[in-house]
């Protein structure tokens, strides 16, 4: 099953997104990598790397990131992974709340990494009103 990692500057945001998306798909590994290790606003490539490793059960991991350095640190985290795992990790170019919920549902029904990523990215076109 595809795993999911949520990267945010705020650990409250990433933990909240994990909580929300896990509610929709309990079996999927959705992990939070938010804030710095001393509780400040920011992102931490090492924490992201470790979360990706934990979220992977062989079918790869989709990463969601919020602003600026979150994306940069997610890319750096991927560069630091073992080569085999590197090929199975993608960053979703989509919103982290809606995207993560869609991705969790898609992962839970056994879709592959590319399919989960595509569905998550389509969520940016969802109409709310």
């Amino acid at each position: 099953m595809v795993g999911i990692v949520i990267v945010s500057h705020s650990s409250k945001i990433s933990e909240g997104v994990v909580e929300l998306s896990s509610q929709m798909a309990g079996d999927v590994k959705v992990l939070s990598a938010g804030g710095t290790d001393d509780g400040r606003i920011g992102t931490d490539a090492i924490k992201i790397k470790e979360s990706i490793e934990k979220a992977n059960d062989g079918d790869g991991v989709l990463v969601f990131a919020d602003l600026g350095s979150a994306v940069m640190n997610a890319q750096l985290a991927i560069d630091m992974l073992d080569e085999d795992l590197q090929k199975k990790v993608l960053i979703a170019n989509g919103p982290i709340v809606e995207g993560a919920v869609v991705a969790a549902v898609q992962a839970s029904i056994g879709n592959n990494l590319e399919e989960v990523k595509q569905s998550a990215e389509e969520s940016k076109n969802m109409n709310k009103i």
Partner: protein
Amino acid sequence: MITSDILLRIIENMVNTIKENKDYLTELDAKIGDSDHGINMDKGFSAVLEKLPSLKEKDCGTILKTVAMVLISKVGGASGPLYGTVFLKGAAVVQDKMEINEEDAVAIFDEAIKGVKMRGKAEKGDKTMLDALIPAYEDFKDSIENGEDIVKASYNAQKAAYEGVEYTKEIIAKKGRASYLGERSIGHQDPGATSSYLLLKTIWKTLDEI
């Protein structure tokens, strides 16, 4: 020639420079960013200071790589992965070497800039640290190629970086949080370019004192 001992002294002085300029860098960032540049850099470099005793007798590659990993894990903002990449790319050039010669120094500078461009997807003129680093690299490389010693070359590099910082006042930010401000970012110098200049100045000052 920069021995591993001198390299450690440069890094220790960098820690002090960042600490002394913590508030200044944060004030600059408050004008066009998220007011954390000085705080973040100081967090990272203070953590580097704790690692320095364990790096005595180590090769230059190990020293630079250790600094990189600490900055990556401790800084928190975009400057973590960016400065982390600078040191990581530099580490690869001098892996297992106990000293950095002039040629290595040019190569470290070159690799570091390529790394920052790749990681930050930025170019010269985007109002980033590259506006200090690229002119500094160009003057450093020219100086070495013209037979200047490493002290004079690093003096020229920090001077070019200073002029690069001044230039960032005139341009619009295209990267990072400041890019949300558009025209309003004009008139303010870039905090990242400023910290890059301060670090380059520290390299020159350390070498000049030896």
